């Protein structure tokens, strides 16, 4: 069986890694290539880069960064942020990215998922979905970095994205993001039961037990975290050893 994955996420702004709480309060957390190399050595299974200031002018900076990262590491990585056209996807994959994550653009134009997965294979297309629970307990989908609420409900949008050809779902709980009080296991479990593509949990990891809970209780395929790793609060090797002791299959 395929092993469960630990994925450090690097939010990138102008080639630097930043991380905030609840999508604001950005703190500089170091050089992206250096961090990528460090994580690769420490046993990360994959990396995700999210360009949070994607604009036409910055696009070249991102491609340059992707080329540098691809030369530096020998594990897969995903790039996301402001990707809206097949041409953007092709440029990023050619620069050395293994997958791209699409967020606002697929809400605007769901057929992009199908076009992109036909052209590049569904394994290269990650649907990144940000949700926030409203007062009636419904997980609503947000776009534009969490700034804009949509009409979409989280689970049905995940299922639609899978049907359209997405190869993975990167599910971020905006309620949990930056809080360090655990993943949104309840909603993640609904999604893993409702789709048959891999699901990556994101938002809320604060300690080893949170990862175990997401794997064991919610049945996710991968867990993503950022600040825990950037600020060395949690060591990836130790985390994986802990997971293995608790009968989760990981690559060590």
């Amino acid at each position, binding site marked *: 069986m*395929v092993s469960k994955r630990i994925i450090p996420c690097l939010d990138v702004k102008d080639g630097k890694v930043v991380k905030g709480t609840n999508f604001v309060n950005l703190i500089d957390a170091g050089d992206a290539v250096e961090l990528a190399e460090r994580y690769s050595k420490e046993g990360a299974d994959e990396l995700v880069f999210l360009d949070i200031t994607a604009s036409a002018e910055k696009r070249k900076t991102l491609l340059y960064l992707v080329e540098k990262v691809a030369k530096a590491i020998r594990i897969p990585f995903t790039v996301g942020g402001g990707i809206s056209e097949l041409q953007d996807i092709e440029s990023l994959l050619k620069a050395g990215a293994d997958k791209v994550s699409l967020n606002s653009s697929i809400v605007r134009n769901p057929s992009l998922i199908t076009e992109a997965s036909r052209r590049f294979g569904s394994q290269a297309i990650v649907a990144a979905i940000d949700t926030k629970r409203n007062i009636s307990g419904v997980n609503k989908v947000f776009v534009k970095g969490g700034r804009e609420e949509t009409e979409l409900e989280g689970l049905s949008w995940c299922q639609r994205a899978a049907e359209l050809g997405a190869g993975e779902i990167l599910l971020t709980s905006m309620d949990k993001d930056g809080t360090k009080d655990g993943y949104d296991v309840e909603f993640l479990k609904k999604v893993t039961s409702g789709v048959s593509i891999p699901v990556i949990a994101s938002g809320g990891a604060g300690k080893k037990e949170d990862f175990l809970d997401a794997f064991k209780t919610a049945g996710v395929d991968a867990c993503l975290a950022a600040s825990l790793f950037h600020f060395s609060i949690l060591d990836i090797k130790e985390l994986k050893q802990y997971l293995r002791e608790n009968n989760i299959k990981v690559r060590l």
Partner: protein
Amino acid sequence: MIALIDYDAGNTASVANALGTLGQEFLLTNKEADICRADKIIFPGVGEASFAIKQLHRYNLINLLRIVKKPLLGICLGMQLLSEFSSEGNIACLGVVPGRVEKFDSSKVNVPHMGWNEVFQKKESRLFKDIKDGEFFYFANSYYLPVNEYTTATANHGIDFTAALEKDNFYGIQFHPEKSGDAGLKLLNNFLEL
């Protein structure tokens, strides 16, 4: 000289980077003449099978790839295309090895098969020299080639499938050595040293 085949259906950048890490010179090419005079041929592939076959037709490489005599390494989709047929786009493939490529059963397992999985060596193969049995390699595939007489290693995703194969000068691996850390580099190096 190593020919890395570029037919617009493979993420050649990562394979090129891995060869760079190994300090190995290579030629990125889709020309018959280059491939004919190469000592080793690397045939990567990412994406959809029928699109890839169409690209091979476009560059007039179908027949050549069937009859090359130098060691050829098919990676991921490149390995699947060595088989007889792919149900991805229902397309006839190169027919170098027997078997039909099938889709994993999404009622039983998640599809795509994505991540690091253990590769179990079933037959002696120089590709796996000094690589431990059960080593983890990185996979990203929705389709698989069933185990056949040329299978040298298997992995399991609901079903045992071909992770590596070998027939005469043709080698194939379903996983991505260029994305599989040190073990992947070791395997690539083993191919280059054949």
